[in-house]
């Protein structure tokens, strides 16, 4: 049972009723989910208040809009209002609850709400019913009950509608559309082949064209840069210009190019030297531009060091301190996000590293991590990778000196499965990572978390192996991941309801 994320809620409402002006503002005070939306706190009163406000807003918008009413809950002047409402409950309910509404008692429960409002007017009856349905846990959560059909001791088949919801939220971040619902109703989704047949058209659909890019964005937490803080004295342009938005746009232009034009290979994502810039970012590469859109640029500075997503300013500025680069954040990113190795948190009472001071490079400041035995065990896993990024400052600009000292971007990876060794600069690091099976395995895991909205478990081992095999035989093509996972056992089945483990 997964709660819709804010984005999923907004997308789903958009698909169910159409545009509702100001709906996203209702969620302004809600907390953002964790990475990939996996960790979900329980819903309590503050959240329910938000859902109530949102549902009321949608319901009053619909009933106040003649076109929306005609589409969703038409009722001729001389028609029986309760019959019209009954039709609304079954048709809209099937879409909102992502399952047919057929139980007579269940329909009658809805009509009790309608009756209360219908005492005032038909519109108000629909308004109350619609608001109630949008506050129902059947709408707010993606509920999986499964079928009686056991395929193994710890696995049951999902219903076609449940698989349709997995597909649509996994790939589109919204509810199933008519075509997918019809596939569910006809039984097509009962087989792996039937599920696989939906992938091509779903990914070609406008809602699916950005799926893999959205994955990359969430995986590296791209939009974190928009809330990053920088020292106003050193980087006055940070708060006063459109720089941060441009960084996000630049990353998207690059991802679109890799996933489209360059064939979607993971290796290209990590190593492609192709640079996109607009007027805000052209100075990063020693060029100028007046364009607000993103064009390929020929850099006069730092070009040879460019290495795909690893040198995107959006990423490097996020993985930095307000006033300095951060070899720790950057090393940790590689270790955790690209190698899928979790590091322990820092011990208590960590002394603050020496402040930034003239004439001392960042690398030099972190020397204590090497000399102090209490630090070096963990930091030997982190800092030497991060040092490889030292050609990039706190806002992701290329540099050859740091605080007046020449940059030393030599680095080293230890403790990996297949990428141990030294390197010099990000471009060499990128090449190492691009050839690593551990990185491929990690990306496949991240995809699993993205599409399934949960962490992989021991029982998913065979599915993970299948996904990885497909991913490797596609030469690390990211666009092979959706279909690979959609046909796995992990996607097709779930645990029985009496299991203590979810899902």
């Amino acid at each position, binding site marked *: *049972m997964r709660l819709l994320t804010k984005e999923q809620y907004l997308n789903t409402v958009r698909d169910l009723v159409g545009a509702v002006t100001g709906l996203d503002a209702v969620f*302004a*005070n*809600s*907390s*953002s989910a*964790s*990475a990939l939306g996996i*960790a979900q*706190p*329980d*819903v*309590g*009163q*503050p*959240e*329910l*208040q938000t859902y*109530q406000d949102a549902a009321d807003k949608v319901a009053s918008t619909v009933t106040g809009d003649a076109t929306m009413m005609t589409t969703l809950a038409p009722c001729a002047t001389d028609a029986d209002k309760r019959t019209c409402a009954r039709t609304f409950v079954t048709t809209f309910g099937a879409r909102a609850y992502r399952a047919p509404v057929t139980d007579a008692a269940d329909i009658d*429960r*809805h009509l*009790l*709400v309608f009756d*209360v*409002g219908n005492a*005032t007017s038909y519109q*108000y009856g629909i308004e*109350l019913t619609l*608001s*109630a349905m949008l*506050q*129902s*846990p*059947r709408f707010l959560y993606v*509920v*999986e*009950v499964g079928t009686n059909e056991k395929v193994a001791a710890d696995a049951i088949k999902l219903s076609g509608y449940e698989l349709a919801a997995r597909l649509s939220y996994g790939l589109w971040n919204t509810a199933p559309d008519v075509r997918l619902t019809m596939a569910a109703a006809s039984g097509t989704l009962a087989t792996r082949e039937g599920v696989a047949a939906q992938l091509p058209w779903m990914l070609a659909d406008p809602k699916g064209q950005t799926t893999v890019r959205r994955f990359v964005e969430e995986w590296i*937490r791209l939009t*974190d840069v928009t*809330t*990053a*803080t920088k*020292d*106003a004295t050193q980087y006055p342009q940070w708060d006063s210009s459109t720089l941060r938005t441009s960084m996000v746009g630049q990353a998207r232009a690059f991802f679109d190019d890799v996933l489209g034009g360059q064939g979607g290979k993971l290796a290209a994502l990590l190593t492609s030297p192709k640079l996109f810039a607009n007027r805000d970012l052209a100075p990063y590469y020693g060029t100028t531009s007046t364009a607000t859109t993103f064009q390929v640029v020929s850099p006069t500075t730092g070009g040879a060091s460019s290495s795909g997503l690893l040198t995107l300013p959006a990423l490097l500025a*996020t993985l930095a301190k307000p006033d300095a680069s951060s070899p720790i*954040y950057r090393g940790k990113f590689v270790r955790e996000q690209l190698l899928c190795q979790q590091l*322990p*948190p820092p*011990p*208590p*009472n960590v002394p*603050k590293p020496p*402040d930034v001071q003239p004439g001392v490079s960042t690398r030099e400041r972190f020397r204590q991590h090497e000399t102090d035995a209490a630090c070096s065990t963990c930091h030997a896993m982190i800092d030497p990778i991060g040092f490889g990024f030292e050609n990039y400052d706190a806002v992701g600009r290329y540099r050859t000196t740091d605080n007046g000292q020449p940059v030393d971007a030599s680095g080293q990876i230890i403790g990996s499965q297949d990428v141990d060794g030294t390197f010099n600069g990000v471009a060499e690091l990128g090449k190492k990572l691009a050839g690593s099976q551990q990185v491929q395995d990690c990306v496949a895991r991240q995809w699993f978390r993205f599409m399934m909205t949960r962490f992989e478990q021991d029982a998913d081992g065979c599915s993970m192996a299948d996904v990885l095999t497909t991913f490797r035989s596609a030469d690390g093509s990211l666009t092979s991941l959706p279909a690979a996972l959609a046909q796995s056992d992990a996607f097709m089945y779930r645990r029985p*309801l*009496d*299991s*203590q*483990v*979810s*899902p």
Partner: protein
Amino acid sequence: MSLDSRTTFSRRRLLRGMSATAMALTSPIWRTATAFGADAAAPGPKRFIGIFSANGTIPSAFFPTGTAPDAPLTPGRILAPLQAYASKLLVLKGVHMTSTIGANKPGGPHMKGPGAMLTGGSLGPGSFSGAGGPAGWADHRSVDHEMAVHSNNAIGGSTKFPFLHFGVRATGQEPLRVISYRDKDMPNLPMQDPVQAYKTMFATANLSSAQLQQLLTGRKSIIDFLKDDITRLKGRIAISDRARLDAHLTGIAGLEQQLTTSAASCKTPVAPTSLNLMDENNYPSIGKALTDLMALAISCGMTRISTFMWANADSWQHYPFIGVPEEHHFTSHAGDGDAVATEKLIKINVWHAQQIAYLFDKLAAVPDTGGKTILDNTLVLWGNELGVGNNHTYKDIPWMICDGSGYFKTGRYLQFKDQNHNNLLISLLHAMGFEDVTQFGYPELCSGPLPGLTA
């Protein structure tokens, strides 16, 4: 107690409106919301406000001089704006946020403070970055929430809102901008927009009684539908998901309480003007608007439990309106010997004390029962995420308590020898009447209420 000048529509009028419907709004779901009445004779504070401000203090200006463990309070420079209330204050030194310290505690020092301040716990693991992250949400319930729900919602269950949380420009990664937690990993995020807060608090304010009746009847039918929905669904879902639906159902019950509980003595104020929340220069005006709303909600019985955050932990707010155009966090890292920076930090803290004095003025202007004012019967705690900004110490947090009820022996400056703030939180729970509480937050850090606080 008759309804006084704060009344806009009377409870009788509401009931008259409701009686036209088929709904039975009798006891127990229809409860009076005010603190007037049955509990008037009971001693001790009846309301609580937890206040947060950021980046530590300047100890020499916050703590009074002298080394006596128990001395009459002579406010120092930072607390000088609260001089008029000195007899109701307790200033505590030597009470540390030890709960943030220990092996494997995720998050940087600024980040851990707000999650620990009212919980007596610390942050759990998670993926929120920034300010020394990553970390997750706090791992324990906060004391304000415990007050609201303790003894079967004895406090929170009696009011339209069991709690209301406010924050002025509390931005940045989530753990930096929350001090209230319903439970582990369950933050109560503050309302930051005065307009939105007003809409939430006075949603039904401008309705005619017929409109109000219609709204209440409609809401009631939806809530009944949802309760039924959850019961039906619960039998069909995985065992592991049932607890989530229980939490959901509890929340629905809270919405029902909000619906069926009158806040009849709350006069609807003028709606606040819309302010750009992103504009740092609006910090004082947003703060004043939210303070006004909180003071009203506390005074008229709309809620009895509130928290208020002045900016987020690690605050990057600038204070040009008091001659400190520098960023707070950056300035707080200046060395002890930097007299210019120290003076600026004192100014920032003095300014916050002035805002708290403004809140106290509002609460003290409203009479409560027994010759007391609302302020007298409101327990206030002012705390911080750190002791001092430049060394990130968790020791000697600048705690200030205000209590005019007579429960605490106030007007004193107390210096403890290394107490954990868990014991302070236990003291607060005792003050609110929950003397059965012996532990709060990490049990191993608790030894009971702080000694020598009570009258």
